[in-house]
């Protein structure tokens, strides 16, 4: 099986989808510069650099998506999405509904986020939950190159606007990617490790921290089940509930601020629908309610560690 980084898996998905469908175009801040091989193959009309103006990049994608094209836009870093909120939330997310279904917005917005480069809070801010809270949008954040490729291909073919977050810390980690046509439906979580004692739910780089925690727990006789959500919206509620009904214990882990994060929604979901199966309280591990510092140790400390996850799981299993 070929090995690709997550960054190259994104390029492979773009290449395959642009070959498959002439209406797929990509533009954004430096995309034609950084992915010049796409310009070589598809030409300067379908792969375009843009001004550093996130609002008009996103707005142009919204207008193009509603009228026949399938744009993928690169807005670089997730905090820059603040400049594109009106276009993504008020236009792409609402104008289908407000028009009584007259328009669809098949567009993908790429943005990087997460600890790893010490770029500080104006380049690293895990804002996924903002978009989950906004109707009409889908939200994806893969944890492996294989998933990134398969999910991006599905996102490009989806008729809805998709926010596609790339974890900076995983961007240049290599991983095996199946060659050829391979798609994953949006809204399908993966049970990346089976276990009977405790469920660890996560997405992005903290999936790997959960897997490391599960290794540690296994040596202590605790079998942890690890779920990679992959999509935050739609959320695979059945996978979460099915696992918790089996294990009776839940730790939700993400790098984003714990306050009103995805973990809060998952905890509420389980409390509402699987309360009787719980053997212990639900634990949420998330980032602090603080901007992320550039200083490496502080940046890393904002991310739930494998040790913290294992400790939380052990505590639950002592119940």
């Amino acid at each position, binding site marked *: 099986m070929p090995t690709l980084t997550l960054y190259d898996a994104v390029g492979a998905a773009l290449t395959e989808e642009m070959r498959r469908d002439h209406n797929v175009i990509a533009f954004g801040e430096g995309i034609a510069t950084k992915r010049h091989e796409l310009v070589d193959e598809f030409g300067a009309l379908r792969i375009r650099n843009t001004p550093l103006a996130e609002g008009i990049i996103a*707005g*142009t994608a919204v*207008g193009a998506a509603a009228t026949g094209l399938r744009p993928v836009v690169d807005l670089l870093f997730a905090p820059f999405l603040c400049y594109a909120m009106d276009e993504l939330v008020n236009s792409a997310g609402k104008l289908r509904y*407000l028009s009584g279904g007259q*328009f669809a917005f098949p567009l993908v917005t790429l943005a990087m986020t997460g600890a790893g480069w010490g770029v500080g809070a104006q380049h690293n801010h895990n804002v996924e939950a903002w978009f989950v809270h906004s109707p009409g949008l889908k939200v994806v954040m893969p944890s492996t190159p294989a998933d990134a490729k398969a999910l991006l291909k599905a996102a490009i073919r989806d008729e809805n606007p998709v926010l596609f977050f790339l974890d900076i810390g995983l961007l240049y980690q290599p991983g095996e990617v199946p060659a050829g046509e391979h798609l994953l439906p949006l809204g399908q979580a993966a049970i990346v490790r089976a276990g009977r004692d405790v469920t660890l739910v996560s997405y992005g780089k903290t999936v790997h921290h959960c897997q490391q925690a599960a290794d540690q727990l296994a040596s202590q006789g605790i079998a942890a089940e690890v779920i990679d959500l992959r999509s935050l919206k739609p959320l695979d509620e059945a996978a979460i509930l099915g696992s918790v009904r089996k294990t009776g214990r839940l730790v939700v882990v993400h790098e984003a601020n714990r306050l009103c994060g995805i973990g809060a929604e998952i905890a509420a979901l389980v409390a509402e629908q699987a309360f009787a199966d719980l053997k212990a309280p639900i634990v949420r591990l998330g980032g602090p309610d603080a901007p992320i510092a550039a200083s490496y140790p502080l940046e890393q400390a904002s991310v739930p560690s494998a040790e913290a996850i294992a400790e939380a799981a052990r505590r639950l299993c002592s119940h």
Partner: protein
Amino acid sequence: MTPKPPAKSPQHLLEQMLLIRAYEEAIVNGSAAGKMPGTCTSVGQEAAAVGVVNALAAEDLILTNHRSAGHLLARGADPGRLLAEVMGRRDGYCKGKSGSLHISAKELGVVLTSTIVGAELSMAPGVALSQSMLGRPGIVVCFFGDGAACEGSFHESLNLAALWNLPILYVCENNQWQAFVHRREAMRREHVAEWAAGYGIPARTVDGNDVFAVLEAAQAAATQVRESGRPYLLETLTYRTRGHLEPDDQGYVDKAELAHWLARDPIATSRARLLADGLLTQAQVAAMADKVASHIAVAQAFAEASPFPAAEELTRDVYA
């Protein structure tokens, strides 16, 4: 259904303006009587809308905003379905989900209407990109006000449209009011068109209360966009003679300024001109008024008879 070729005879321009005025007055009266929600009217701006829309071809696409009645009606929208939409009824153009503020009518080429000031400007380049990349003939017309011109999206939009050679006719309806703030309090220059030169976009300012002047200027502008494949900015100088959102006592409006513009009412002036030129008789004026009144009466009856949307519409059309 493709849009009908627009009427261009002077009499039809006048009749369209009368229809727009009567439609909006019906909403104002309905709102005052508690039967309809308040809306953002375009009373006083009818010539700007009618002149531009009648310069367009059937395949052209229009983006507009919350003050859209003139654009929609001049494009041939059914006032009954518009009123139904304003009243939140099932037979509205958007199934009653838009209300007055974001009425799109794809079948008429009126797309992506947004009430966020400046959003039409942010989406217009993408619509024009589709037109040019998919080889479609129509140009894109983007209606916005002087308020939107003070948003960043105006400047980003013009920059990108010039850079990418996008076939957009930007139409700034400078109605002197940005919600409850006079244009003079919000921008240094008198005219929005002056900004276009900074982006390398040709522009022209026209008397927006003279429907014939607007039509002529818009025909020339649309032809230039069609032939060059590049953007153009037309600014229509006009005045919002009613408040921002009904009901509005306009206590904040300078009375002398309002009187000046009311004396230049686009309907009264064009009607007087047609009468003076012998293109219209008093009898025809009366017949036209009767025709418009009965059209609006039928529309209002249709809207009032239309049911509210079914409960399941609450969550329908969120995702494709």
